[in-house]
Each structure stands twice: as C-alpha cells, then as structure tokens.
C-alpha cells in the first residue's frame, strides 16, 4: 500500500490523526496533514484506509497495489 495526500485539499480537521496516529500527523502551525508513513506497515493499513474514508476533504489517496 502507498499513500498520497493533497495538501491543498486538507482542511485540518484532524480526523486522520485520530484514526491513524502512526501514519498521519498535523503541522503545528496550521494543522495541515503530515504524512508520516507513505508506505504503512501491514498493521497500520486498515487504519490508513479508514482515515482516507473519513477525511472530510477527500485529501488522502490509498493506492493498494503499490
């Protein structure tokens, strides 16, 4: 699995950090998403999928085949 994010879409809701704190973080200055694990380990993949699903700005993309 490979994750990409679109920073310009991020609204800073922080849902991804609540769901998958090992994979996502937020910049301190403006709350915009920071991708910690572009290729998350197996035990983080379910949480990453969930984060992409709940992101209210559709800013997280999951590429399963990568």
């Amino acid at each position, binding site marked *: 699995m490979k994750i990409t994010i679109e920073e310009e879409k991020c609204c800073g*809701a922080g849902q991804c950090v609540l769901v998958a704190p090992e994979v996502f973080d937020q910049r301190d200055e403006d709350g915009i998403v920071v991708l910690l694990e572009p290729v998350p380990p197996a035990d983080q993949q379910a949480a990453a999928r969930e984060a992409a699903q709940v992101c*209210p700005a559709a800013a997280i993309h999951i590429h399963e085949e990568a």
Partner: protein
Amino acid sequence: MTAPGNAAPPRHVVVVGASAAGLAVVEEVRRQGFTGEVTLVGDEPGLPYDRPPLSKQLLAGEWETDRLLLRAPERFEELEVTHRPGTAATGLDTGTRTVRLADGGTVGYDALVIATGAGAVHPPSLGAGLRGAQVLRSLADALQLRGSLARGGRLVVVGAGFVGAEAAAVARGMGVPVTMVDPLPLPMVNVLGDEVARLLAGRHTAAGVDLRCGVGVEEVLADGGRARGVVLTDGTVVETGTVLVAVGARPAVRWLEGSGVRLGDRGRDGVEGVLCDPRGLAADGVWAAGDVAAWFDPATGRHRRGEHRLGAAEQGRAVGAALLGAEPPAPSPPYFWSDQYDLKLQSYGATGRDMASAVVEGSLAEGRFIAVYGHRGADGLPRTVDGVIGISAQGCGCRSALHKKTTIRSANGARIEGRVMAHCADIAGGRGGQTRAGNGMCRRAPNGAPPRKQFSARTSAFLLLRRREPEPTVMTATADHAIYLEPFVPEPLTP
C-alpha cells in the same frame, strides 16, 4: 451476527444518493468484507464528487471539476458497485422492498440506505425560475454561478450563512461587486454567536462587501424572465443581474412520501428528514445517513439532523457497518470548517448564539483566536465546554492549539483518543478557577493527588473526545496533567 432491521444478512445493498454519505456506505460495506451486490443510485451525472469546494475553490476557478471527485475513477471501480448516475429515485415500496426510478425501472433491495441529501430552498418570491437567480448546491449550480461572475456585474447574495458568505468572499476575490443581505443581525450568527459573527462581518465589510444585515428581500425584480434587481424589505432596490439565493436547504424526501418511512414534521418533531433510531435505522431494512437523515439523539430525546460534511461521511460509515450487523464506529464531535478570504474557521462540538462563549487564546481584535462555547454561568461566562471555534489567518500560531496531539492513557491502560482543543487560562484565571468543563484536563496537584474537579487557573486545557464517558472518571496522563471525564451535566456555580 444479526442486524437490526434485517433478519438475515443482506444480499443486495441499495444506496440512493451518491454523494459523501452514500459513498461512505458503499466503502464501509466493502471494508467490512461484504461481497454481495451493491447498487448506488444518484440523480446527478458522473462519479461522486465533493460539495464543500463548490463555494470555494471551484467557484473561484482555482480547481476544475475533476479535482472534486471523491474517489479517482480506478478507486471507485474497485468498489465493484452497480452505479446508476443520472437516475433519480421516484418512489419506495417498503412492502416489496423496491425502489422506483425516474427511467421507469425498479431496483429491489434487502437493505436500503437513503442518502439523498438536501436540496437548496428557492422560494418563488426570491426569483425561482428566473434566469440570473439561482441556488448553489450542485456542480452544475456552481459552474453556472462561476460563469455569471465572470461576465461581470454585481452579485447579490441572499442569506449570509455558510454558502452565501463563502460565495461572497470568492466573488470579492474575483473583483466582483457584492451585496449580501440577511434578516439576521450578523452573518452566520446562529452558529458563531454575536462576537465571532461581528468579526466575520468586519472582514466582509473590509473586503468591500456591501453587507445589509437585519433586512430581508421582498422580491426579485425581473425583465423578460431575467433577474434585474432585488427589492429589500426596507424599500431599497439593488440592481443586479445575478442573485444567489442561499437561504438554506431542506431534506430531499419527496420520493419517500407515502412509502411508510417516517418523515419528520417541523412542528411535530422539530426537524424534517427521515426519522431514524440512534443508529440510522428508519424502517425494516431501511436506513438513512447524511443531510436527509434525522437520527434520534438519546441525550436530548429529540431527532437531530445535520448538514455538515464530516457528519455525512460518519453516518454513512456507521450505517454501512450497522446494516451488516457490525458494530458502528463511535461518532466524532460535530465538526465544520469554512474558508472566507484568508480566514480559516473551524468548529468542533456544539456552538451557537444561545450559548455563552469566551475567547481563550488569541484575540478577536487580531482576528485570530480560539473561543469556547458552553452553558452560561452566573458570571456570563461558559461554565461547561461543549464546543470550540477557532479562526486563524494563514500561519497563525493559535491554530496549533486546536490540533495539539495528546496521548492519554487511562488508569487501566486504555488509550483515550483526544486532542487539546483550547487552553482556558483566561476563563478560569482571575475567576478563581470556578469554570468547569464537561470533559477536561487539568494540572495534577503538586503532591500527586488526583485533581479536584475544577480547572487550575494556569494550565487548564480542554479535550474534546471521540467518546463520552457515562460516569465521571479520573484518569492519569503525563507527569503534570491529569484527565478527567464526566458527562456534560450543567451544575450551578458555587459563589
């Protein structure tokens, strides 16, 4: 595994409404491992797209249509859904479990999810049917308005809520003259409260918006079927060829009339929409999620309907799990955001004009601050924290307080997911630390004793948590902070 509303696990899940809530249902049932048939019916053409950018980046011309897709075509393909775009549902027979479609066809279901959203209200008195007078709800609406703005001339915005205020800001950014009219005294005042709404009004005025608050629109003037101006209730006439009517939305439930699905009545139920139980179940095998759905809220004993983007996705997820008999995920606090000019506004939890509020970080004068909202104490300040609003310009330091991540472990080792919402030194400080909060975090007493259930003056901070504890609980956290959780029960302040 038994699902309420479904005696047997469904074989065919039908979702009517192909926006944020509907897509979330589809994704969740697949995520849960459902391999049966899934049909997604939507009245708009094309793949599911996102609506918040319609009054922001799309209207401004910064983004084109393809950037609004909720999922890339190949990702959507992976969901293996029978997609019926451009096909409105026109009726429902809960006896035979059949949805009627506008093209004359029908589709049968084992589990149905109603996710038809809401439609923008456009009353005849506000120029419904006239060219140049429009609402903003769909991609087609947004592209039409963008075209009108590009042609020049004044934009009159009727209604200074989310959609109206965002569109006004975008139009000013394009150099379009804007008049914004609202019968309420300030823009977005019902959600922001007076003080914050006053700040927002100042930003619009400073940006050159001709803001007319406390006045309504009597009628839209027309010439040959085309809008040419608006008459305000104070008698003023504003000439314009472009009128954006942004006076709210109503749940799209017309197709459900006579179906037996219970629909809310504003007088009787206090809310419109599909009346559901606390998990989104509306009738046997019928669920509802998103703007169309009014879920029962056990805390207040009433049905509640929201119109925010995160709530739609979360309800969709919860229904997707529940209809398969799986445990739905815990809901987050209500959340919304709005972008106007260089301002980013974010809100968590319950806020509103009828609540007490206090700025706890930054200042209104700077236009960068965090304010908490809660039940009003005897001193006029909030004595609970039920919600938080943060406004920041780009690069604002105070926004970080909204996002500071805190890892908290309870005494039994369970992790509590939360994030620091605001420091409240200003509320508690100087007021003897009397302010109480529903869910809070405060400094541990120096001797390591559990904190008293009130905030210390210096280091109090609030957490809005993903779940609420039924009973007050004292928990440990870092060396100098402790967490306690308790239900939001207002109590009188002791003098």
